C-alpha cells in the first residue's frame, strides 16, 4: 500500500498542470460567490419584510444556519453533479488513452494501490473544493453568530457527497478510454441518484410502486439528498455516514474490478 501516495501525487500534479483543475476550481469559486450572495440577499430581504410586518416572533426563529448556510450549501450540491465528473473523467481514461495503463499494470503495483491512489487524488481535490465553500460561511462568523457545529456538519456532508461523487466518477472513468464518455456516464449516474426520490414519488402516486413500498423506500434510501440533508440540519447519524461509506466502497470495488478485467479479458 506504500505506493498509494505515489500514484495519488502524480495524479494531483497532472491535474494541476492541465487546465481542468483551474477551470473547475475557478467556476466553483465564482458560483459559490454567486450563490452565497444571492442567498444572502434573499435572507436580508426576508428579514426586512418580517420586521416591516411586525412579525417579531418569526424574526426570532430566523437564523443564519437554517436560512442562509443551508440553502447555500444545497445549491453547491447541485453544482457538484457537473463539477466532479469534470475532475474525475481523466482518472483512468487518460491512462488508457496514453498507454500508461500498460506501465502501471506491468509495474510492481497492486490494483488496490492504483485504484486507491486515484481515489485519494480525487479526495484531495474535493477537499480543496470544500475549503472554498467553507470560506463563505467563515465570513458569517466574523460578522454574525452562526452555530459552529451545524456549519461543520454541513461541510462534512458536502465533503462526503463530493467523495461519493468522486467514487462514481472514478468508476465511470475506469470503464472507458474516452474522457467525454467518462464525463457523461458519471453525470448520468449522478443525475439518476439525484432523481431517485422523484422517481419513487412518481411510482407511488401512479400506483406502479404502490404495493412495492420497499422498492420506493430503497430508492429514497439510495438517493444522496436525504442523507445530505440530515447532515445539513446538523444531525450526524451513523446511518447516514454508513450510507456514504457504502456507496463509496461499492464504486471503489467496481472500479477495481473494471481495471482488473483488463488482465482477465
Amino acid at each position, binding site marked *: 500500500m506504500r505506493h498509494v501516495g505515489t500514484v495519488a501525487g502524480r495524479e494531483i500534479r497532472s491535474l494541476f498542470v492541465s487546465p481542468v483543475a483551474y477551470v473547475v476550481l475557478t467556476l466553483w469559486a465564482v458560483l459559490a460567490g454567486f450563490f452565497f450572495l444571492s442567498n444572502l440577499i434573499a435572507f436580508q430581504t426576508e428579514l426586512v419584510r418580517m420586521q416591516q410586518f411586525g412579525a417579531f416572533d418569526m424574526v426570532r426563529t430566523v437564523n443564519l444556519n437554517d436560512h442562509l448556510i443551508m440553502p447555500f450549501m444545497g445549491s453547491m450540491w447541485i453544482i457538484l453533479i457537473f463539477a466532479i465528473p469534470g475532475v474525475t473523467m481523466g482518472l483512468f481514461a487518460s491512462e488508457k488513452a496514453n498507454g500508461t495503463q500498460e506501465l502501471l499494470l506491468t509495474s510492481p503495483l497492486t490494483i488496490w494501490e492504483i485504484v486507491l491512489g486515484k481515489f485519494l487524488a480525487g479526495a484531495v481535490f474535493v477537499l480543496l473544493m470544500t475549503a472554498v465553500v467553507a470560506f463563505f460561511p467563515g465570513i458569517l462568523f466574523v460578522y454574525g453568530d452562526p452555530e459552529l457545529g451545524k456549519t461543520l456538519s454541513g461541510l462534512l456532508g458536502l465533503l462526503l457527497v463530493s467523495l461519493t461523487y468522486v467514487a462514481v466518477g472514478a468508476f465511470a472513468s475506469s470503464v472507458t478510454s474516452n474522457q467525454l464518455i467518462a464525463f457523461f456516464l458519471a453525470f448520468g449516474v449522478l443525475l439518476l441518484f439525484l432523481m431517485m426520490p422523484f422517481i419513487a414519488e412518481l411510482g407511488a402516486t401512479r400506483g406502479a410502486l404502490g404495493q412495492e413500498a420497499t422498492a420506493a423506500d430503497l430508492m429514497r434510501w439510495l438517493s444522496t439528498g436525504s442523507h445530505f440533508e440530515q447532515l445539513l440540519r446538523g444531525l450526524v447519524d451513523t446511518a447516514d455516514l454508513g450510507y456514504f461509506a457504502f456507496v463509496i466502497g461499492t464504486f471503489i470495488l467496481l472500479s477495481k474490478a473494471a481495471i482488473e478485467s*483488463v488482465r482477465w479479458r
Partner: protein
Amino acid sequence: MSGDAPAIEASGLTKRYGEVLAVDDFTFSVGRGEVVGFLGPNGAGKTTTMRMLTGFVPPTDGTATIAGHDIFADPLAARRAVGYLPESPPLYPEMSVEGYLRYVATIKDVPRRVRREAVDRSLERCGLVEVRRRVIGALSKGFRQRVGLAQAIVHDPPVLILDEPTVGLDPIQIQEIRSLMADFAAPGEGETPRAVILSTHILPEVEAICRRVILIHQGRKVIDQPLSELIAGGQSLEEVFGRETSRDISAGAEGAMENAP
C-alpha cells in the same frame, strides 16, 4: 534475486482469447547477457507473449519465471525484474522527462536513497541529459522513444523486453535507438548483465544486434536458433523468414512442425 536462474524461462505459455488461440504452447528460455530477436509477422502473437511475460495479461495455460520469480506465485517480484517498452511508449505528455523517470523509478521500487542516481544514469545512457527538464509532450518522436527506453532501464532490470522499439522513426533515429539497444545488452558499470528480448519485423535490425532468433508464426514457435547457424550456408534471414511464415501451421497442419529446421 536468485543468481543462477535463467533470466526468462517460459514453459507451455498459451493464450486464448475466446475461440482464438493467440499463443500456443510456447516454451523457451533466455539466459543472462543474451540478446534475442523475437520475430514474426504481425498478429503472430509477439505482443501477446511479451504481455504475458511482463504480467500485463496472464497466460491461459503454462507459466514463466523471470529471474527465478514465477509470474503467478510472485507476480510483484517478477514484474520488478522486467523493464518493458510497449509498442507505444507509456508516457505522460504533461510530465517533465526527469519527473516522469523519477515516478517510474518509484513505482518500480527503486529505493529512495538511490533513486536520483538511477534516474541520472538512465538519462545519461539514453542521451536525455539536455532535455531532462523538458515536458515530454513537447519532445520529438525520437526523443520520446528514448524516454520510453529510459523508463524501461531506470530500475536496472535483469530482463528487458522491447516491443518494436524502432517503428515509425526516421533512419537516423533508428540508428540511435539500435546502438542504445546494443549498449543495453552489454552491462554498464555496476549493472547486472541483462537478457534482452527485442520484438521486431525489421530483419536487418536483428542481424545487427541479436545473436539468437526466435520466430513465432500463428502463435507457435517455429525457429529457435543462434543467428549464425540460421544464416549459415549463405541464405539470408529474409529467405528464412519468408519460407517459415508462408506455411500454414494452424489447426489441421500439424505435420508442418516436424519439418521445421
